[in-house]
């Protein structure tokens, strides 16, 4: 049987209780959470390892170019060429296969982890720094991106996290910075001379750094700052593609291209940055990480994620102050969140996202689906295709976005399928106690008890208001 504290630790801070969690958590729920953070600090894995995403990107690029060549040959020929259709499909198949593997890896980790709080933090930051797999070739590497840019810095300093994300090829490609060109850069001037072509800035990444990743939309910047930051990060690109990005740098890895970089000093948020190539952008990001608006923005999002859609203002202030006092270190902020009284209030205030709902269901059943396609299918039906928020803002973190009637009915329909598949082997009354403890309402427990079968009982448990929230 769960205590209220352990139920909150497992469901709100974690990714959903497993039947055996109560024993693991014991009587010190905050201690259980903090021990996970300590373990994460000790691991620090992936740092310094050659990036897997570079290999993936290189493969994707090669397949894409091969397809392009075939298509060009076909287009240039008067007679239909004998081209193996499989060769034309190879690129798309590669992407689709990689996407399935990535979703499988991510969800297996989420369903089986003994450090579900750390995993929730990973999901939180991955959503804060969202990329979306509906842009190619990102579907091939969304989890590699998380593992390389985000996981190593989860318990570190936000400055390092920010730096790793903005330099990661996945983010550069997602927000179009790899080909953004300083209007007065050597490369732009050469293009103008040679072909009379006007090439220049793309301000997409710069805008989202300010609006979404650091200061927040009302964080005190304007269009001038966006344009200036876009100039600052010109040249932040990737190695070894084609066209403008041919050569230079290892294929698929971050590569600073000085010839694309806008020369001269720039002014962002009133501070002047003298020309210093790559370091210029690093300096701006470092300053942004230490900005009070960033502290407030991150504190608001964390409190919204862990406490309530409308986060208590005093908690937000406290977290923001701790962030600033500790020079953007994240660990003290998490600890304050764990120590906050507001984090332990019942009833459960957060309506689960489809991802929360599906992952917590599988954790409750201690079952990992054999085929990731199952997970992709159901999450798409429930309105959250894995890793495809469709926008750099990531998935919304408030109930208003997720509590639509049609989506709720679909959750119940899926719970019916799961009930029929798994309900015979388990006792749903015992499971309700093990997962939710005193948080389960008397009405829910009575409804589960009165169910006509184990299957229906499990469906009612999964549909219960307390299981729909965390």
């Amino acid at each position, binding site marked *: 049987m769960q205590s209220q504290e352990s139920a909150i630790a497992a469901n709100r801070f974690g990714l959903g209780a497993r039947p055996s969690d109560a024993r693991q958590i014991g009587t010190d729920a905050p201690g259980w959470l903090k021990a996970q953070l300590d373990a994460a600090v000790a691991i620090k894995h992936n740092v310094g390892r050659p990036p897997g995403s570079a290999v993936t990107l290189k493969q994707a690029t090669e397949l894409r170019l091969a397809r392009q060549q075939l298509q060009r040959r076909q287009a240039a020929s008067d007679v239909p060429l004998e081209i193996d259709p499989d060769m034309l499909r190879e690129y798309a198949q590669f992407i689709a296969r990689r996407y399935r593997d990535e979703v499988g890896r991510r969800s297996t980790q989420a369903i089986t982890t003994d450090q579900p709080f750390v995993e929730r933090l990973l999901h939180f930051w991955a959503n804060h720094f969202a990329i979306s797999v*509906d842009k190619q070739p990102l579907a091939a590497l969304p989890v590699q991106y998380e593992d390389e840019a985000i996981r190593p810095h989860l318990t570190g300093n936000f400055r390092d996290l920010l730096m790793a994300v903005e330099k990661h090829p996945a983010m550069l490609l997602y*927000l*179009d910075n790899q*080909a*953004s*060109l300083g*209007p007065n850069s050597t490369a*732009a001037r050469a293009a103008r001379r040679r072909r009379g072509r*006007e*090439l*220049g*800035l*793309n*301000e*997409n990444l710069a*805008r989202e750094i300010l*609006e979404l990743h650091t200061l927040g*939309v009302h964080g005190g910047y304007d*269009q001038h700052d966006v344009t200036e930051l876009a100039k600052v990060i010109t040249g932040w690109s990737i190695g070894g593609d084609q066209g403008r990005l041919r050569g230079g740098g290892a294929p698929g890895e971050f590569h600073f291209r000085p010839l694309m970089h806008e020369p001269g000093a720039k002014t962002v948020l009133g501070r002047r940055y003298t020309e210093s190539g790559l370091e210029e952008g690093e300096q701006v990001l470092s300053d942004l990480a230490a900005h009070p608006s960033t502290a407030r923005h991150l504190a608001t999002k964390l409190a919204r994620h862990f406490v309530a859609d409308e986060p208590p203002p005093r908690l937000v202030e406290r977290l923001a102050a701790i962030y600033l006092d500790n020079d953007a270190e994240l660990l003290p902020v998490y600890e304050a969140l764990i120590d906050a009284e507001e984090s332990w209030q019942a009833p459960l205030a957060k309506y689960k996202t489809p991802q929360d709902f599906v992952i917590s269901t599988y954790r409750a059943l201690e079952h990992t689906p054999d085929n990731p396609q199952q997970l992709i*299918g159901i999450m*798409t*039906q*429930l*309105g959250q*295709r894995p890793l*495809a928020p*469709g*926008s750099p*803002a990531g998935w919304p973190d408030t109930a*208003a*976005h*997720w*509590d*639509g*009637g*049609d*989506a*709720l*009915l*679909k959750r*119940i*329909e*899926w*719970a*019916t399928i799961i*009930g029929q598949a798994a309900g015979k082997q388990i006792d749903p009354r015992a499971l309700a106690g093990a997962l939710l403890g005193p948080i389960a*309402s008397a*009405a*829910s427990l009575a*409804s589960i008890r*009165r*169910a*006509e079968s184990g299957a*229906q009982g499990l*469906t*009612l448990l999964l*549909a*219960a*208001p307390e299981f*729909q929230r965390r």
Partner: protein
Amino acid sequence: MLSRRTLITSAAKLTLLAPFARIAGAMPNPNARFVLVILRGGLDGLAAVPAYGEGRYRDLRGPLALDPADTSNGVLKLDGLFGLHPALTQMHALYSAGELCVLHALATPYRERSHFDGQKVLEAGGIMPSTSAGGWLNRALTVLSEAGDERQGIALAASVPLVMRGPFSVTSWAPSRLPDADDDTLARVRELYDAVDPMLAGRLSEALQARELAGDAAAGQRMGGRGGQAVTPLVTAAARFLSADDGPRIAVIDVGGWDTHANQGAAQGQLANRLRALDQGLKSFKAELGARWADTSVLIVTEFGRTVAANGTRGTDHGTAGAAFMAGGAVAGGRVIADWPGLGSGDLHEGRDLRATLDMRSVFKSVLSRQFGIDDSMLDEHVFPGSKAARPLEALLKA
């Protein structure tokens, strides 16, 4: 959050005003239907509706410029200044038949360049990107219900977009591949929600109503395309809902994928493909709706336009004013409505964006007042608070 207290006050105020909620004079059409299509991501208005007759058009657009009318793959001519993107053949046919209005150089009151705030302003119907008061369509539905019209609104989406969110109950529907839950289990879940969770109880009963309305035709319909982005399945479902005599009268549909920062293409390419899907969707919608098309208007809008000039990566960045479309049998079409600000360097907003000369709320208000008969003062103060200066457009809809 809307506090309980303000909720009650506004409801009381509505009841008080209800007898005046109808306009005098022309009676609204009791069969009127309205679909709001929100293109999320910022449609490039100058790609959809190029001002090809402007001298500076080709220079500014560079690789994105479309060829002149009467060339192959050139713009579809509307008049001497404006054309439609060559992918919009159905819209062009509707325009020629007098059933489509093109609106240009319009914007919401929002003047920054965040998608997310831009959409909030569009949907909340105010001046600031606030979500606390819900959406303007929800307020409009409240007004209509206070005046005795209980027919609902529906969102063709798994969750209700902000524009229709609020105290008035609306339904939502999205294509499903899941088998229905059995009646007994559903009844037990309803009973449980009724006992302990009024919010979930309300949502579930709305959803069951919508399922009933959608009927067998919609059951098991495949979700076309990735992430539910395909237009045609959604609009045909919308048409089925709206063609029922006792069904909803107002629908909202979201279509994503318009944020074209890089390689957006010109006559062909990613944006052309999106536009073609939208254009085909409109055709399917009209076909599915049948005779009810005569009473219907479809308004297609986006949160903001994009930069006039192409950016450094053959795309466009976030801008200000853009284009919108209004189609349907109820529309006085065959016209371009634009107080054209021009593309000269002095004409542009902050030297880069198309300047806004028309407040999008004027278009919204035209629909609500002319088609649904909501009183102007109600629109000025309640549905779009503080919008008195944005007058409804005359003659956007047929008399």
